């Protein structure tokens, strides 16, 4: 749910990175954090376990610049991917403006990808959103690994809506900013549609 502050001339939007455990959601945020200038980002918060698995969420506030005199800020969140953290995932989807689905391209993670995508649809519906209409993009991560599902095949299984998708190697930053740019664009265009 975007927040338009006419007094401070600011627009704040919420983007959530969703996907199965260990698919690279936090890695996406870490790369964005590393590559943005200090004045355009806030502190990155990671609520993680001792083994660096996301426990509740990661949070990165990002200022992208101004549009028509309004400062545009994106609040990027990740969800904990592990199946048993479903209650936390539901909470983080509250008030979301756009979703990035990060898939793990490895053959053995396909089942987890599909389960997570179904879980996303269900949880969005519970929060009053529709996965078929909300700003949405997909990133096929870990494309550098040897045992990946061919792009056409993975896209067929995970992208029935045919939204823009990207191949990613988040550890090296490949596809990270393309994905962010796409979701930011969709979110802003949605604001325009509702203006």
């Amino acid at each position, binding site marked *: *749910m975007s*927040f338009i502050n006419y007094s*401070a001339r600011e627009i704040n939007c*919420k983007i959530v990175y969703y996907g199965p455990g260990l698919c690279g959601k936090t890695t996406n945020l870490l790369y964005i954090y590393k590559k943005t200038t200090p004045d355009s980002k806030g502190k990155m918060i990671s609520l993680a376990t001792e083994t660096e698995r996301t426990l509740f969420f990661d*949070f990165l506030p990002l200022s992208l610049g101004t549009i028509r005199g309004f400062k545009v800020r994106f609040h990027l969140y990740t969800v904990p991917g592990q199946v048993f953290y479903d209650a936390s995932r539901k909470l983080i989807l509250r008030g979301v403006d756009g979703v990035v689905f990060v898939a793990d391209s490895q053959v053995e993670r396909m089942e987890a990808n599909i389960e997570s995508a179904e879980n996303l649809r269900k949880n969005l519906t519970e929060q009053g959103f529709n996965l078929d209409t909300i700003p949405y993009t997909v990133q096929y991560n870990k494309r550098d690994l040897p045992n990946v599902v061919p792009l056409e095949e993975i896209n067929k299984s995970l992208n029935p809506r045919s939204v823009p998708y990207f191949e990613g190697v988040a550890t090296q930053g490949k596809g990270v900013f393309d994905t962010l740019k796409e979701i*930011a664009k969709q979110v802003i265009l949605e604001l325009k549609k509702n203006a």
Partner: protein
Amino acid sequence: MAEAGMVMYEEEFKHIDAELSKLHQQVNAKVTFLVDKNGQLIASVGETQNLDTTSLASLTAGNIAATGGMARLLGEREFSILFHEGERDNIHISMIGQRVILVVVFDQRSSLGLVRLRVKKSVEVFTQIFDRILKKVEKESGKKIETKSPFAEITEEDIEKLFG
């Protein structure tokens, strides 16, 4: 969309800021601030120079959300007040209506009793202000042509520029 986005107008913002300042003074707080339930900071007053208010806002909302989840598991609608006690600083968090969170950070210069008492009064004032904002947003969306939304004229070029 589940809910319309929140909009803050100049006039109401001034009222909110004034009430936050009043509360800040009355309870001798370090910081008072308001957060949208989704983690967006609405306004803050006090010693905010060395405080990462954006992160604090996001974590406050996460905290309220998690506690709300626990409440529902117990059959409660919500826990409307949270209090965290530290060695030096304490944090008092309370819900205003279903949408906004009021946070007071205070130290030994104040007391929990005083904070609770004053917060209760402020919550009533804030509830009225946010009711007014909601009504205004509804009214404005009914007369779309007259509102000057900054987004109506956005072009793809504007968005491209954001990523320079």
